[in-house]
């Protein structure tokens, strides 16, 4: 009998977090500043699923992972991981989870990769013989034989990320937290890592990952929560999320202009435009402003849009109506483009 179907292994209820920092003003004076990182976040993750937290920089993704893995105490709300309260039973939570945080500083540079894994494995009290075998399995699983016995200080950034990933598997936990696991990897390694994450799911593990890469969330995750400015603005399977903006279309425009802000404001006034966002990228042709618009019907908005662009002396590189993607879901709910 399968009772695991909808068994929630991570539950967050109304989590709030405010950081208090001191900002230096002048030489010795400091001013208190409050950063509201989470404004009441609730969701649950079912056993065996890959759950993705999608959001732009500063949205609160890492803050949320740190609370769920006991590194940070919430200011309000409650979180249960593997049946244990993150505030009241931190040790039980730590035993239940494997964690990979962002950044390459998380390893001992003066030890080899293997020595790092042995060290952390021992802190989890993995018995010696099992630990040795497990390290070999993980090394093979991730394909990191080539550098595992070198000092970490000789690793490339991507290799450090892979070792950090290996470290998250060392206690063979059933729940794995990954904070932007593919961010420092080249495209080929990123694809490989995504495949490994899927494999882990096939082994029955629950995976909670953060990302700001749309395709990653779309391809990898069973369910996605979109987080922005400390709030979850939408949650569901990638298809469900796309369906919420069904009937809407996206129009993408690449232009060269000096006053994108005023142009965007004007386009926003057009009837039938739901959301608009823009972003500047530089290419060999110079600074290109990319504008993305969510609308009911591209046929209706294209003529007035062209008029605004032409009247403002804008050089148009590219303009095209497109099928909405998960990226547009994000734009629809937050009014922002992802990085």
């Amino acid at each position, binding site marked *: 009998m399968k009772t695991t179907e909808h068994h929630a292994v991570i539950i967050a209820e109304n989590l709030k*977090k405010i*950081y*208090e920092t001191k900002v230096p003003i002048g030489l010795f004076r400091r001013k208190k500043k409050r950063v509201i990182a989470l404004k009441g976040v609730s969701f649950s993750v079912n056993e065996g699923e890959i759950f993705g937290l999608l959001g732009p920089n500063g949205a609160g993704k890492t*803050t949320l992972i*740190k609370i769920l*893995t*006991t*590194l*940070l*105490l919430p200011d309000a709300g409650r979180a249960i991981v593997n049946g244990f309260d993150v505030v009241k039973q931190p*040790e039980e939570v*730590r*035993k239940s989870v494997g*964690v990979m*945080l962002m*950044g390459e*500083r*998380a*390893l*001992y*540079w*003066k*030890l080899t990769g293997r*020595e790092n894994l*042995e*060290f*952390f494995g*021992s*802190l*989890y*009290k993995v018995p*010696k013989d099992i630990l040795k075998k497990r390290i070999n399995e993980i090394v093979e699983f991730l394909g990191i034989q080539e550098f595992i016995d070198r*000092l970490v200080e000789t690793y490339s950034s991507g290799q450090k990320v892979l070792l950090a990933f290996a*470290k998250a598997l060392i*206690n063979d936990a059933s729940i794995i937290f990954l904070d932007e696991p593919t961010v420092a990897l080249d495209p080929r390694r990123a694809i490989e890592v995504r495949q490994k994450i899927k494999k882990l799911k096939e082994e029955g593990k629950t995976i909670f990952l953060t990302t700001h890469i749309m395709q990653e969330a779309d391809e990898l995750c069973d369910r996605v929560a979109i987080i922005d400015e400390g709030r979850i603005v939408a949650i569901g399977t990638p298809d469900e999320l796309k369906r919420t903006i069904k009937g809407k279309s996206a129009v993408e425009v690449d232009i060269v202009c000096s006053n994108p802000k005023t142009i965007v404001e004007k386009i926003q006034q057009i009837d039938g435009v739901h959301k608009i966002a823009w972003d500047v990228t530089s290419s060999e042709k110079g600074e290109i402003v990319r504008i993305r618009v969510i609308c009911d019907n591209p046929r209706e908005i294209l003529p007035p849009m062209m008029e605004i662009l032409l009247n403002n002396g804008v050089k148009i590189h590219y303009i095209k109506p497109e099928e909405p993607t998960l990226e547009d879901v994000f734009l629809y709910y937050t009014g922002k483009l992802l990085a």
Partner: protein
Amino acid sequence: MKWNPEPILAIFKMRLKVYSRYPGWIILDIIAPIIFSVIPFLFAVGIAGSLERAAEIFGNYAGTREFLFYIAIGSAVWGFSTGITWDFGMWLYEELETGTLEQILLTPVKVYELLLGAILYTAFISTINFFLSITIIAILFNCLHYVLSINFVLALLVVVLGIIPLMGLALFFGALVLKLKEPWAFFNFLTAFMVFICGVFYPITILPPVARAIAVVIPITIAIADARAIIFHLNFIFNPKIDLILLIVYAFLWPLLGMHMYKRVEKELRQRGEITVF
């Protein structure tokens, strides 16, 4: 459940491996204690005019003319004890700076395991330094007979007994370092203060009463004075029995105080999200 010392040993081994990969540190660690114990002799001889004269003056207030070895014992016990007291905090700060503290705190490792693992390493290095400097000084200044006596072994026992309260002090300082995040300023200040007050180079009887009262709260003072008392047949701080009771009381008091302080600071850091901020 069976006790599993694996995390403690893992921290010990990890620190030893990291240490072994910085050859410069090893050389420094061998040379430093020797220099540290030779300097006061040169100083004393310089002030008194000759070795003979220095010994005479010293004998009048310390009770033994063997001031060379007297100071060697003091600085060796001092080096050993302060190593144990400071090193935990310095290590925690280092881990905070490199970002690995966060990774350690993600595991179910317990505070006492962290402390014992870190201190096992310190004790190992400090013991080597201790015997190295004592032996070299003893050979240089003809005091080897003191080292080979049964009293020397007894004195060592006092020093070892002093380790337990020192571990409490270590936790206490470790917590303060994590909270204040300025380990060096703090370290320099307290080192100077404690060299002055613990009687490293002289008996604490020459200190004013207030300073003496503070001194006996620090277990290092008792370890230094009693190790000397046993080796040179001098006076104990109070008497052997009271000194022993004090050390035993401190062996409970300081660890409790340290644990309380550490837990509080750790919680504060988790609250403020400062486990990676330094």
